[in-house]
């Protein structure tokens, strides 16, 4: 009896979260895919269902015959969507690189810090992550506005003569993404650098490497797993980012997250926004699997 009970309880540990994720994470993607193949209708919900499970097998087969790839054809014909995908990928790639440039020295400095103050530094990096994302993006509006704090400071210092236009440009989006995602880049790089054996660098220097060569030949390659994890944590969500381009970007800024949002909320075109989401998912599937591989490897730590 107790053996059967314990076997059941160990099964439940797996089954409960597994079933939950199947229903609320995996199944929705199939629904999105199904709706991306249907046609728009003026109704609620605003699409004609492709098939109904109540119709049984014949109904499903009938439905498959009615599959329409119109939404995907539409996406390829309208340059707006293509440009939005390309510009999202470009903006995300540039921002990821800029984040890396800023985060690496910070993580390196933290790893070199005296052991006693490292927990405090770590806490200080994590803390902004707990405060609202929306609030942190919002805070930049007051700084970057033409009459904002940055321009006031630069005018006061005499660096510039007339206010810089930063808000509602791509520059503002880069600042927003770098700022919001910085902790995601610092943390994995720091944990890779902190685990590193310092004597390796000493050995390289004893063998005649300058500190700079020792860094590029020893330290940087050893920190690569952290760099890769950090880049994935920034790049993947940044491609589909909505809040940052919406609040900091201009009206001419194209990002796919914003396009999807508008297609859904303003145009109420559910099938097209589903198709946009499916294509975005297909673009991101490779980096996501890359990220999962890295995660699974670190599991065995």
């Amino acid at each position: 009896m107790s053996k059967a009970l314990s076997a059941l309880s160990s099964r439940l540990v797996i089954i409960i979260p597994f079933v939950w994720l199947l229903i609320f994470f995996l199944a929705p993607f199939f629904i999105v895919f199904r709706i991306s193949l249907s046609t728009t209708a003026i109704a609620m919900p605003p699409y004609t269902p492709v098939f109904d499970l109540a119709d049984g097998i014949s109904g499903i087969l009938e439905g498959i015959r009615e599959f329409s790839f119109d939404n995907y054809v539409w996406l390829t014909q309208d340059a707006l969507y293509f440009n939005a995908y390309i510009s999202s990928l470009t903006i995300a790639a540039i921002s990821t690189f800029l984040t890396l440039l800023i985060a690496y020295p910070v993580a390196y400095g933290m790893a070199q810090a005296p052991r006693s103050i490292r927990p405090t530094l770590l806490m200080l990096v994590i803390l902004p992550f707990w405060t609202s994302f929306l609030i942190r993006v919002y805070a930049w509006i007051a700084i970057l506005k033409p009459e904002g704090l940055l321009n006031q400071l630069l005018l006061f210092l005499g660096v510039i003569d007339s206010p810089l236009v930063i808000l509602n440009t791509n520059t503002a989006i880069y600042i927003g993404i770098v700022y919001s995602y910085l902790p995601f880049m610092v943390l994995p790089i720091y944990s890779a650098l902190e685990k590193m054996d310092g004597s390796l660098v000493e050995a390289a220097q004893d063998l005649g490497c300058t500190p700079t060569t020792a860094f590029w030949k020893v330290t940087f390659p050893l920190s690569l797993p952290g760099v890769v994890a950090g880049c994935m944590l920034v790049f993947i969500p940044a491609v589909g980012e909505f809040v940052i381009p919406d609040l900091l970007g201009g009206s001419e800024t194209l990002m796919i997250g914003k396009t999807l949002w508008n297609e859904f909320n303003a145009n109420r075109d559910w099938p097209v926004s589903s198709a946009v989401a499916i294509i975005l998912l297909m673009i991101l599937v490779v980096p996501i699997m890359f990220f999962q591989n890295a995660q699974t490897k670190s599991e065995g730590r």
Partner: protein
Amino acid sequence: MTRWSRFNIASIVVGFGFLYLPIVLLVIFSFNESKLVTVWAGFSTKWYVSLFQNQALIDAAWVTIRVALLSATLATVLGTLAALALTRYRRFHGRVLFSGMVYAPLVMPEVITGLSLLLLFVAIGLDRGFWTITLAHITFTMCFVAVVVQSRLVTFDRSIEEAAQDLGATPVATFFQVTLPVIAPAVFSGWVLAFTLSLDDLVIASFTTGPGATTLPMRIYSQVRLGVTPEINAACTILIGVVAFGVLVASIVTRTRENQRERDERAAAAV
């Protein structure tokens, strides 16, 4: 090897300045007398007063807190189970799929998660509102809880569990009397993380909400679109204060528990 060079210190100071300056400025300007967020005109708390008269904002705050409390609690249960499944059972059918489903939501763009959950709720005919937001939040925050708890479980000494079972404890009793007390700090920080993620979420909540359930981020967002006002600064300052207080309490609790555990272990070793 601690070469705490001037370059290291400079990069940390610049990095941390970049992280904190916008938040500090936002808090300072919430006490501004002027309606302009960028011109200082003297100290005032009038925006906090007007905030507490804004019924729509207060209602939204209540919805948000109720969603966050409920979803964080359920997400902690599910996330802890998922972490146990991942660390304790190396092989089972669908393990690759399972770990994929745990890690993917960490990086999944919010617009995709929001859209797909909304379409699910429509397909199964669930009325949208408080409960659909809660279900959506449980789903995406449980994965963060799972990662936090998992990182504690991999360093867990299994021998004390085996000892308990050798002494006749059932697996369920072992979990509640041995495992859970040890991983409690991680479970607790998982809960706090899930709570703040839920408190913060705009995109997923906007997709999955229905009439009558407007959350605080949704309310703030619609006001921000109309312009930056000191009243929103005041609302943000209160949110930051609440979160900072929560994190402070969480870290004190965690540290006390860890110290207690170390003391207990040393005492046990001495016996």
